[in-house]
């Protein structure tokens, strides 16, 4: 029984990270009808930003809790900046190009970010040690090993999900983003600064990646330049399964994917290396069954 709970805990943590990544995809799709495939590498960029902040913090002798805040803020800002730069410099100019051009361009941007980290970050190819800033150890509750940092990170992840949810649905800025998502032209005529809103939306979407990157580093205490690609594929699948444009869909998609992966290893250990294969098979089957995702995407085609 105890290991079932342990699997649940692992799945929850993974699901939180996949959910955060998927939220980014949903926001970009909502606002610009664009799949920004470099999102996974923006996450890596954020994580490396956090790592650099950690080095600086230890150099300046910050206390642990201040270093933790400094790392998370740096990760979030790094991703936000690069997300905004990509939006302004590459996504907006290609706004009217066919979707395939945009998809390919964002994939190449992802590759470029990955290569830059690998080449120009000192020893970029090697896995990097991420400092342990959270209290280590854990406590045993009837056989289940609960780690302090695991619990804190899951809570932080879920808190951030609600924060983004709140920004999008409860603030004026969120209203502007949703208006632009609904219909760019009308939003513009209503006096919303289209470009600025899009850039801010991309920045917020990238911030979720930054947080996910920092959480990833803190939880696994190791980051590497190539972790973005597989996270992008999983985050993209989660956002689509949940129904693009729908924040809750992305979150559910993230936990679903993590659950699938954990279930395969927990119940079919012999197939553990088919883990991603099986999860993706389920994703394809789900899409065949509900072609616009579980929580149907915004209205079907107007005739």
């Amino acid at each position: 029984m105890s290991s079932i709970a342990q699997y649940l805990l692992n799945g929850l943590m993974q699901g939180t990270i996949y959910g955060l990544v998927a939220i980014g995809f949903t926001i970009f799709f909502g606002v610009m009808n664009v799949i920004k495939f470099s999102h996974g590498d923006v996450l890596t960029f954020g994580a490396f930003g956090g790592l650099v902040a950690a080095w600086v913090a230890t150099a300046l002798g910050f206390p642990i809790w201040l270093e933790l805040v400094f790392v998370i803020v740096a990760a979030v800002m790094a991703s936000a900046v690069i997300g905004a730069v990509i939006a302004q410099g590459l996504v907006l100019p290609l706004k009217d190009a066919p979707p395939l051009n945009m998809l390919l361009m964002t994939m190449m941007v992802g590759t470029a970010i990955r290569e830059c980290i690998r080449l120009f970050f000192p020893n970029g190819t090697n896995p990097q040690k991420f400092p342990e800033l959270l209290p280590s150890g854990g406590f045993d509750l009837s056989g289940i090993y609960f780690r302090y940092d695991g619990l804190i990170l899951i809570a932080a992840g879920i808190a951030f999900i609600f924060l983004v949810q709140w920004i999008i649905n409860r603030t004026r800025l969120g209203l502007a983003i949703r208006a632009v998502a609904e219909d760019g032209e009308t939003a513009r005529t209503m006096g919303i600064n289209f470009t600025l809103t899009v850039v801010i939306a991309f920045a917020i979407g990238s911030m979720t990646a930054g947080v996910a990157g920092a959480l990833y580093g803190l939880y696994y205490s190791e980051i590497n330049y190539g972790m973005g690609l597989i996270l992008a594929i999983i985050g993209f699948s989660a956002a689509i399964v949940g129904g693009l444009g729908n924040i809750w869909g992305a979150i559910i998609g993230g936990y679903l994917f993590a659950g699938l992966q954990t279930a395969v290893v927990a119940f079919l250990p012999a197939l553990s290396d088919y883990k991603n294969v099986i999860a993706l098979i389920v994703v394809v089957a789900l899409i065949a069954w509900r072609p616009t995702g579980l929580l149907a995407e915004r209205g079907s085609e107007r005739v």
Partner: protein
Amino acid sequence: MTMISMKGTAGQIISSILVTVFLAGSLIAILEIEDQRELGICVAVIAVLSFIMPRLGILRSAEQAGAHHPWAVRSIILIGFFSVLLILRDNNFALLMIATILIYATVCLGITIQTGYAGLFNFAGAAFLGTGGYTAAMLGNVTWLPDAVTIILGGIIAAALGTLLILPVLRTRGHYAALTTLAFGVLFNGFLEANELLGGPQGLKVPGIQMFGWDFSNDLAIGSYTFSFYANYVLLIGAIFAVFMMFTRFVERSWIGIWLDAVRLDEIAASVFGLKVSVWKSFAFIAGNFLAGVMGAVYAKMTAFIAPANFTFGDSLLLVAIVLLGGIGNRWGVLIATMIVILLPEKLQFIQEYRLLLFSCVIIMLLMVRPAGLLARRVRVFEELR
């Protein structure tokens, strides 16, 4: 720059000769030149020429020639092809690169039918290429089966595997369709890595091609010239490429071509006027995958080895990049884009680990500068059938 009058049959023939000589010449130059400085100059000259040529209307009239005197243009192209083969006859590496370019160009013809004509996103091109390759590997030790049949079977099995994806592909649109094929591509690669029967990550050896009683691994002697054994593959793949270029042209220049375009542009209108959209999408999807499967089998037999690492998500991305950069839906654009996308990383070997970075930046730049691709697709005109 006023258009020099290239009208009239003579003008058109001359222009198509000029275009063929230019293409053949730049291919030979890029393959033969190793020194970085000379290569830089050569690339600059090619860039300038390819900037001037359309301005002089040479490209336009070469196209006219293709429409009005198809067999004349085809023979010019054939002569060009054989002269390249003759000049590079003992340069093994150059011939291998030409064969690789023709393989990728043919696969991209298939993807052009899928994405360019029917509008289906296919991010699993490498998976179908791999299916063909693994079919050739598995059937390798079935000695009584002639290689021609193995290659065709590669295509059939790839097409059959594609039908598993038909339902999600047909029911989804836009980004959802992209996910379905993307997930399938990643899944296929994961399956190969984990599967023992198919040789797992270590890969499999694949026997070479024996056709018409001739072992392709022997050097070829024609008249007084001896050709490297890769020439056998270049000839076979060149022939297959020519057949499928004609197949793609016939598909595009027929009622089917119009139906595919209509399905891409407006499914509802297409259905309202009587087109069973699922039939035409399936036709395009299966035809494209068949092409990928056939060339996968040939590619595996030529490189005599196959492993999952060859068919990753990145390779599928490469195929999509080629089709896009060439000018979506334009057959000749696909050939030229394949040359660029295959030769560029090879020629960038001298900057070693910075190769991939520069390659991705070049693609981004091309996408920003020429979103419609190198040779944008012209409106279909049936006038040669008039």
